[in-house]
């Protein structure tokens, strides 16, 4: 097993034979690949405290090499953890004594069809590079999370990501047409023979991989929907009398199909921090290929915003957000770290009827936790049935405070009928709460895991066992 040094050495020799220099097991590399962007792991690293270290990091260049690696893992009983951009925040890749399978060298865009509006790319392609590739051809994936500069495709699918434009274009699960993956037993499961818009050919096995967080194999390739770059854009911000009034306006906007690409409703605390304007502010971007459609949507939105007391603020705040939307470092550098504080984000979603209570209870209860100093909130993704609320928290840089805050946050979400995660995933962070949300469905998911991965080598120790 993994703890025995001789099989480990033999295993590493076989991996080295296969990859010829594209594997590392030196302490510095292992330490860097053990940290990831889980804020607790990062805090641990910054304090110089140890994190669970992988056995080695391997960089295959093809799905076939991934398959051989996974078969070797099965042969030697060594677990593996797929690793894409390293920008996840839930501890999904932290895996002691695992072989980390880094997919970043599998980074080719394989096919792009303007006529069919789809692209096929390898799992290690950086999202930004893929988007730039498409933009040069007049198209866009429009999947733009805050991790856009560093995230890679496979990780976005494995964590069931959403992006800043997902209100219109949908989360990654709505963009994926098909996948190729290496199953936990080392068999390469190819894409369908035919790429089609939809097929009623039974339950889609590939859908299991979306949100699987590396526990059901390694995603190696994906076919995705793409869209022509929109030609007409409208940007506006509104101040509402309350956060709830903003939510009501957005409910009507969504149900009237005047769907914006971006809608972000900041509560007054969040607005104060980001815009130095302590009002409940809604940022909107509507973008369309057709000017007529844009005008029609804007007209509907303007009426609904006014109906709920929205006051136009112009596009300045939208522009400010566009400029700073990927910057997770400036405030950390200037304020949070020098103050001896730390931060995290907790995202949830709920239906319209529950959202006001989710919002107010979360703010009240979590801000009351000892060591928590600020709870900012904005609704960032909207649906016809409800929305995602994204909380940004600042607290004492201590593991004790961290878990106290998370426990209260998860209890609040469960008790108010919200989900424990809208788009970051479960990982190690939320594994203790996922059963409460999924009920017996989790037991069946675990059975699926056992059936696909009898050796339990695919990112074990997480929420699927």
């Amino acid at each position, binding site marked *: 097993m993994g703890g025995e040094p001789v099989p480990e050495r033999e295993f590493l020799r076989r991996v080295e034979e296969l990859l010829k220099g594209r594997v590392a097991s030196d302490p510095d590399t292992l330490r860097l690949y053990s940290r990831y962007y889980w804020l607790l792991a990062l805090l641990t*690293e910054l304090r110089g405290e140890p994190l669970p270290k992988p056995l080695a990091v391997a960089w295959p260049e093809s799905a076939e090499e991934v398959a051989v690696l996974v078969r070797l893992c099965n042969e030697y009983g060594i677990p593996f953890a797929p690793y894409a951009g390293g920008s996840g925040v839930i501890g999904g890749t932290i895996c002691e004594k695992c072989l980390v399978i880094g997919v970043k060298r599998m980074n080719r865009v394989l096919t792009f069809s303007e006529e069919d509006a789809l692209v096929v790319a390898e799992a290690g392609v950086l999202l930004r590079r893929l988007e730039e590739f498409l933009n040069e051809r007049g198209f866009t994936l429009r999947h733009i999370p805050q991790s856009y*500069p560093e995230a890679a495709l496979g990780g976005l699918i494995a964590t069931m990501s959403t992006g800043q434009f997902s209100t219109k274009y949908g989360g990654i699960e709505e963009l994926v047409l098909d996948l190729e993956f290496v199953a936990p037993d080392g068999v390469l499961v190819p894409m369908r023979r035919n790429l089609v818009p939809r097929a009623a050919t039974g339950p889609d096995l590939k859908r299991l991989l979306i949100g699987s967080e590396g526990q059901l194999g390694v995603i190696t390739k994906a076919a995705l929907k793409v869209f022509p770059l929109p030609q007409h854009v409208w940007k506006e911000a509104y101040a509402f009398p309350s956060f709830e009034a903003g939510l009501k306006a957005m409910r009507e906007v969504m149900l009237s199909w005047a769907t914006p690409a971006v809608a972000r409703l900041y509560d007054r605390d969040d607005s104060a921090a980001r815009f130095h304007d302590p009002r409940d502010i809604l940022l909107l971007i509507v973008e369309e290929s057709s000017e007529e459609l844009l005008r029609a949507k804007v007209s509907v939105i303007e009426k609904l915003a006014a109906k709920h007391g929205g006051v136009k603020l112009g596009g300045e705040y939208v522009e400010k957000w566009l400029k700073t939307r990927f910057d997770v470092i400036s405030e950390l550098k200037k304020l949070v770290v020098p*103050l001896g504080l730390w931060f995290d984000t907790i995202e949830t979603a709920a239906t319209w009827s529950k959202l006001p209570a989710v919002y107010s209870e979360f703010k009240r209860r979590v801000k009351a936790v000892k060591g928590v100093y600020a709870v900012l909130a904005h609704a960032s993704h909207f649906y016809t049935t409800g929305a995602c609320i994204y909380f940004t928290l600042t607290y004492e840089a201590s593991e004790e405070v961290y878990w106290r805050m998370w426990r209260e946050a998860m209890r609040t979400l469960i008790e108010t009928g919200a989900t424990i995660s809208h788009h970051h995933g479960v990982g190690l962070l939320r594994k203790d709460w996922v059963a409460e949300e999924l009920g017996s469905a989790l037991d069946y998911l675990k059975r699926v895991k056992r059936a696909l991965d009898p050796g339990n080598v695919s990112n074990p120790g997480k929420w699927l066992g």
Partner: protein
Amino acid sequence: MIALVSLTVLKAVKLTPKLVARFALLPLRKVRNPCLYCPGICLASCPTFLDSGNMMLSPLGYSRHLELGKEKCAKCWRCVQECPARHQLPETYSREKARLELRVLREGSPLLVAVEGLDESYASSLSSRLGAGLAVVKALDQRYTEGRPLEGSSARAVVKALSGREAYSVSPEAAHALGLRFLPTAFTTLGLKVKYEGVVHIPCLLRSAEPEILNALRAAGAMITGVDRDSCLKAKPRLDALYLCPRAGKLGLKSVYDFLQ
């Protein structure tokens, strides 16, 4: 900074006496290595990372292991251009500073400015051909090969000595460090023609000047069929691209200075 801790912002914070005391000490507390807190906003621009897929060979690795950065980082400044905090990571690898010194070898106007050990032969031959002056900056290339920070007073002295003169930097390095005009953007002014058809690489250090560089090369006669913004001659150079970096000549790659007419 003042705006970040304005009263408006403080309304969103649960203030305790301990936190208020820390706010008071805030000006004294600096974060010296922001890369430690960053997910890697610059990753998609790092040539050694893009080539290897290995985070150790990226700003995340270099910032944690300065010796590795000194050895492996391309010092191309692309990460600095991407960084919201404008952290000058490539200058953190060495404690020893690069102490610049300007030596004017031949007075004249215009003045071509070379970097010692990098582009003196190109600069010398061009200065003879154009009847231009020639100056050499010592130690500057240490910034781009070893990651030494510039010694501030010496850099300011060089900039001051060149101010008010029609000075052109032969290399992207001197243009970047000293704010000089990059010579290829003045080829037409100086009567130089470029005989080249193919892909042109935009110098990593001067990415923001891409339109100016391309327009100048076209005006000088270059037939540009493609633009390479990705490769880096220190990491994974393209054999088919024309580099505006004099270092290309030394590495057996196509340097613009070998295509002048």
